């Protein structure tokens, strides 16, 4: 199934959105590894697993727990460490 990840903050250097094909039942936790691989494909110099580990995934209405399963055609956003105010 396909999910779309909206890039936010420092991830905008990879574009507005990243499409990923994942297996049914994939969790947010597993998505971290898949996204790291995808980002390395897009930019071979990308080497920042810590950034992905310290980022959260969210929908328009909630932050997703690591155990949350992904759903078909899901639109999610990756939120890196924050610095508002």
């Amino acid at each position, binding site marked *: 199934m396909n999910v779309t990840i909206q890039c936010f903050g*420092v991830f905008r250097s990879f574009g507005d959105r990243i499409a990923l094909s994942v297996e049914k039942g994939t969790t947010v936790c597993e998505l971290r590894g898949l996204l790291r691989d995808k980002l390395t494909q897009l930019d071979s110099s990308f080497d920042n697993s810590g950034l992905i580990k310290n980022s959260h995934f969210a929908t328009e209405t909630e932050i997703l727990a690591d155990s949350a399963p992904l759903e078909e055609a899901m639109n999610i956003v990756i939120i890196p460490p924050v610095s508002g105010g």
Partner: protein
Amino acid sequence: MGAIFVDICDVATQPLDVMAGLAFVTRSPNGAENLFVGTVRGVNQGKEVLGVSYDVFESLAKRSFTDICAEARAKWGRELSLYVTHGKGRLPVGGVGIVIAVGAPHRDEAFKACRYVIEQVKHRSPICKLEHYADGDSEWTKGCELCTHEHEVAGHGRHS
């Protein structure tokens, strides 16, 4: 009973209005208003800054503001009125990035609630900051990992 107002403003078309915040929270019979205004610093970690660009995930940011304001009222009283607006887009040095205003019956809860709101926003609201430097570089500030609950914030250090 008090009221809550939260918003995100595109600063290219709508600069943040400090006095609007103060006006919103000034309500009878309360007798104390506290105002926090966050502006863009000209230096960060020894580098001269020309401005910043705020990237805001609006729907969740507004929700976080509303949750935080509701928590402040639960802690310091339903009479509190709270106003939170944050800018998105590019601001020069000295530009206003956030306005927080709190109206309360007395100064103690007004000060405490205002401090609470800014500390929580810094850790729980999905907002990123790209700094633009005098040497031509731009860099996303490192920030802190997004906290999803109030109690997580206490374990994090304070950020400027």
